């Protein structure tokens, strides 16, 4: 299946923007060239036989990577998400905050098609992924997910964990996959752990390996589901540091988090979820500095009282 990657058009103006971005692009160079090659071919075919698709594509310069439109999800009688709208522009970080059970994790699971939504639509790069005719595996290949409980495969070494998807799903050769894994591990300071099994690593190391695993296939979007919630306090920093670096690299991310200080620092957009509704959305300054809603204020007061902000 060919995967259209329309937001590439947004990239040239970023490419030479700063030293940071160019450094970030270095790590993904081979990928960028290969995908841009693929995009051009798919574009060419679509001009010939899919004019309606082209019409939708003209506006894609500003098309967000992820867009949720009136998404509704319920488990039995309890409605977990109701009419959630969300836009995640390219190269930005969106933080989902809110109490436990407010729907943050469910939203991420829906975006990755691990849960089927009841109503509404989710778009990835302008393409509706909640269309039942879409192959969910092809969508998931473009999205990286990091879970709260790491979910590394315990019967595989760190390197096997990382190279599994590139080799078995993306058809990357063993050598290339291994090289990419080593490169990423090195960047995250885990070069000596490639041959270890996950149970020999600390929680922070496991979570960093999980991040590498999610990055190995060069995803378009990274979903981080409370990735520091299971960590001892002294290990939280090393994992958040990785996320900070990824932001510098221009990775588009959505993170559900309880680390308010971190959300404030790293996010471009903060969404406060309450009872399955996006109650308030804005820049970190707006949400943390001058929340408009009483519920947001109450939530933040509780967080401050708990010493988490």
């Amino acid at each position, binding site marked *: 299946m060919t995967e259209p990657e329309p937001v590439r058009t947004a990239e040239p103006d970023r490419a030479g923007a700063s030293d940071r971005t160019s450094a970030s692009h270095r790590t993904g160079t081979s990928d960028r060239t290969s995908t841009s090659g693929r995009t051009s071919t798919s574009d060419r075919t679509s001009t010939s036989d899919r004019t309606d698709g082209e019409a939708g594509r003209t506006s894609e310069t500003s098309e967000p990577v992820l867009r949720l439109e009136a998404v509704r999800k319920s488990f039995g009688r309890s409605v977990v998400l109701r009419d959630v709208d969300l836009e995640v522009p390219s190269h930005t970080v969106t933080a989902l905050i809110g109490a436990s059970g407010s729907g943050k994790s469910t939203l991420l699971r829906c975006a990755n098609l691990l849960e089927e939504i009841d109503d509404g639509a989710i778009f990835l790069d302008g393409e509706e992924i909640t269309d039942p005719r879409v192959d969910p595996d092809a969508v998931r290949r473009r999205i990286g997910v990091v879970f709260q409980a790491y979910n590394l495969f*315990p019967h595989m070494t760190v390197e096997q964990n990382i190279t599994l998807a590139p080799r078995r*799903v993306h058809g990357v050769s063993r050598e290339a996959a291994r090289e990419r894994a080593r490169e990423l591990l090195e960047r995250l300071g885990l070069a000596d752990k490639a041959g270890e099994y996950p*149970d020999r690593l600390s929680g922070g190391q496991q979570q960093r390996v999980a991040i590498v695993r999610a990055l190995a296939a060069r995803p378009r979007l990274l979903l981080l589901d409370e990735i520091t919630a299971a960590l001892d306090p002294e290990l939280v920093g090393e994992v958040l540091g990785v996320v900070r670096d990824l932001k510098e690299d221009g990775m588009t991310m959505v993170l559900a988090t309880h680390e308010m200080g971190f959300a404030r620092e790293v996010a471009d957009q903060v969404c406060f979820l309450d009872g399955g509704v996006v109650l308030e959305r804005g820049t970190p300054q707006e949400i943390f500095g001058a929340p408009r809603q009483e519920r947001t204020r109450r939530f933040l007061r509780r967080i401050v009282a708990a010493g988490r902000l």
Partner: protein
Amino acid sequence: MSAREAVAREEPGDPEGPGEPGRYVPSARRIARERFHRTRARRATAIAAVSSLVTAVVLYFVITRSPGWPRTRDTFFSAHYAREALPKVLDGLWLNVRLLVICGACVLALGLLLAVARTLRGPVFFPLRALATAYTDFFRGLPLIICLLLVVFGVPALRLQGVTSNPVLLGGAALTLTYSAYVAEVFRAGIESVHPSQRAAARSLGLSAGRTLRYVVLPQAVRRVVPPLLNDLVSLQKDTGLVSIAGAVDAVYAAQIITGKSFNYTPYVVAGLIFVALTIPMTRFTDWITARTDRRRAQGGIV
């Protein structure tokens, strides 16, 4: 007790560094404690020895003083017949061993297939799933001996062209039918014991359902069920003796032939003891694997 003793004995000999000033000297309290442990261990050994001896003596007298003992001894424990039976029983045993190896391999393969068929989701697989479920339900409920009789005598009665009437092959098939149903349930339990989050992680990487099963779920499932699988193989090992009812000359049938001529049951005892001797290594191996798995789990690994 013994483990504790070993630790106690090892530790006084661990200097914190040869000749270093802070060399560890066991306190009087520790020495007293160890002395207490030693005396208690000695007492425990003595009690175990005495009680074993008493039990053995009581059993010996109960059996040898029973009114029918001289007759029983001649019929079941005759050295003469044991000598006569041993080579023939061993000859027959070779068939049991071959049956075990071949049926064991078939049982593992078929059991795994059935288990996977039962876990398949999706409407396309409904017939397969239903069939696998019906199969395991039926053959787990059917007594092995009835299954054997039906297959061994029923299949040749059909007089189908090209279908064997060899009792060994048919007996082996019957064993495979029954045991694969058991083994399928063991595998299924293993598959279901793999946490759903593992599946979610694999799917989120873009792996298809099939690849998730192959690379993530099955490797973990199989590792977990090795001890119960070995247990089923031990059971299969002795049940290969049942093919004798079909007339295949295995260890049991070899014993039966001698018994039929002489009315002496010693050959059965010989065959039974040989089966026990054969299963003991396997049982020990199972225990060892289980212990190792438990140990790894206790260390925080998920196997």
